[in-house]
């Protein structure tokens, strides 16, 4: 990008970009320490779910306590087969009370759900890169409409799972729409599949596909801001 283009990039685009960049950065900041700890505890034996929870807990707490971004849920999802006493496991804390996720005691028993096909697990595993997925109804963890940012964690060169955080689309709206109205007047944020995340336009609903639009597209990572 040339200096001229950068100058021409609207402020709204920069602010949206910063918001999501910060969310990615939060995970990348603790990932190396966490990965090192995981490598150490799995040196001679395979982990149990309880032991994994103990390792993840402080990192999840740190992420949930992050003042810059409205994080709703955070933690680590183990690679299938990583643990000794379970096929899969989510070490996950969420909600205003930072409650630990318990799949068995949810509205329905979710223990049998195979999370390996969810985008937030599959894409980082395959690409080796951090990924933003959603918005979608997260019927595994939060039962809310969320965006998930996840990044792959490796131990001794092997995929061990993903560190992740959830943002409520509700919080994204609160955080971005007033700013978008101020800076851009009319703006719509969509994902890579053309699904609306948030909009200043009363007639555009989050969850709908945007359809044809004359607006100018400004990429913000894998999202696009339409102005």
């Amino acid at each position: 990008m040339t200096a001229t283009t950068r100058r021409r990039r609207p402020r709204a685009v920069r602010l949206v970009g910063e918001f999501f960049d910060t969310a990615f950065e939060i995970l990348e900041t603790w990932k190396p320490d966490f990965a090192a700890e995981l490598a150490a505890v799995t040196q001679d034996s395979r982990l149990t779910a309880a032991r994994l929870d103990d390792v993840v807990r402080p990192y999840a707490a740190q992420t949930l306590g992050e003042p810059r971004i409205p994080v709703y849920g955070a933690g680590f999802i183990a690679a299938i087969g990583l643990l000794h006493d379970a096929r899969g496991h989510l070490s996950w804390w969420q909600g205003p009370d930072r409650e630990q996720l318990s799949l068995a005691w949810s509205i329905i028993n979710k223990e049998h759900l195979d999370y390996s096909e969810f985008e937030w697990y599959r894409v980082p595993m395959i690409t080796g890169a951090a990924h933003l997925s959603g918005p979608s109804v997260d019927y595994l963890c939060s039962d809310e409409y969320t965006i998930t940012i996840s990044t792959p964690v490796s131990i001794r060169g092997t995929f061990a799972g993903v560190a992740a955080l959830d943002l409520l689309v509700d919080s994204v709206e609160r955080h971005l729409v007033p700013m978008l109205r101020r800076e851009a007047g009319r703006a719509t944020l969509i994902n890579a599949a053309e699904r609306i995340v948030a909009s200043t336009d009363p007639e555009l609903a989050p969850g709908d596909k945007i359809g044809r639009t004359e607006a100018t597209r400004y990429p913000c990572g894998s999202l696009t801001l339409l102005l």
Partner: protein
Amino acid sequence: MVENVPVSKTHAGGQPPSRMRGAPSRMRSAVLLPVDDEGRVEQVERRLIQAVTGGVLRVGERLPSESELSRVLRVSPVTVREALGLLRDRGLITTKRGRTGGSFLTEAADPIAFARARLRDLTRLALRDLGLHYAAIGSACVALAAHRAGREEIDTIQRRLAAAAEHEDQEWSRHLDEAVLELTALSQSARLTREQMRLQAEFSPLLALITGAERRKARESAFRRVLTAVRRGEGRAAADRFAAATDADLVSLIEIKQELPAE
């Protein structure tokens, strides 16, 4: 044994509470609502029943301690104790005292046995009303999904269900439940999806009683028709087909109910 266990007004025979009392607009799955004590006991009882009959715990297995349940379910130990008392009354758990004591699941807590007992207890009217509720929410969800879902998202559901073909009936029924849940989530509505989950918690254990190659083929076919309509973006057709599929399930359940030996 707790004295003066309150007898809930809506708790007659095998009939679990039929109504959730006023919910805040964002109700997280594991949170029990801050209502009067009696309402809470009913909810804990219902959650415990789902857990014990939904395969989270096995027959003969010891339940978590009262304090553990109190922590996980986020209610007072007194509420847990009362709920356990109700489960004892239903014959789902027995409690032993002493060092190796605790509450243990009885044979009646087997999911199939429990579902059969439930089917026997429910009137055709109550069954149909549950089905109506389930169909109403489900239809709304698939209609939204027809408008909002991407083709790849539908194809993924289709593929995963096809991959479940090898499983035996009960297990396959669970995979169908998951496909329905996944399709529901494509509505992009968290509220409707949560509502569908609550209804699935009640309805799915009964649906698992629908077995046999012919009925299974019919159920799969009916669901495929829903997926096709959603994939084509035909909301109304998807809604109608979902309602029709639920109706066919209800007929099967009533037939099965008729054949159950009288108690």
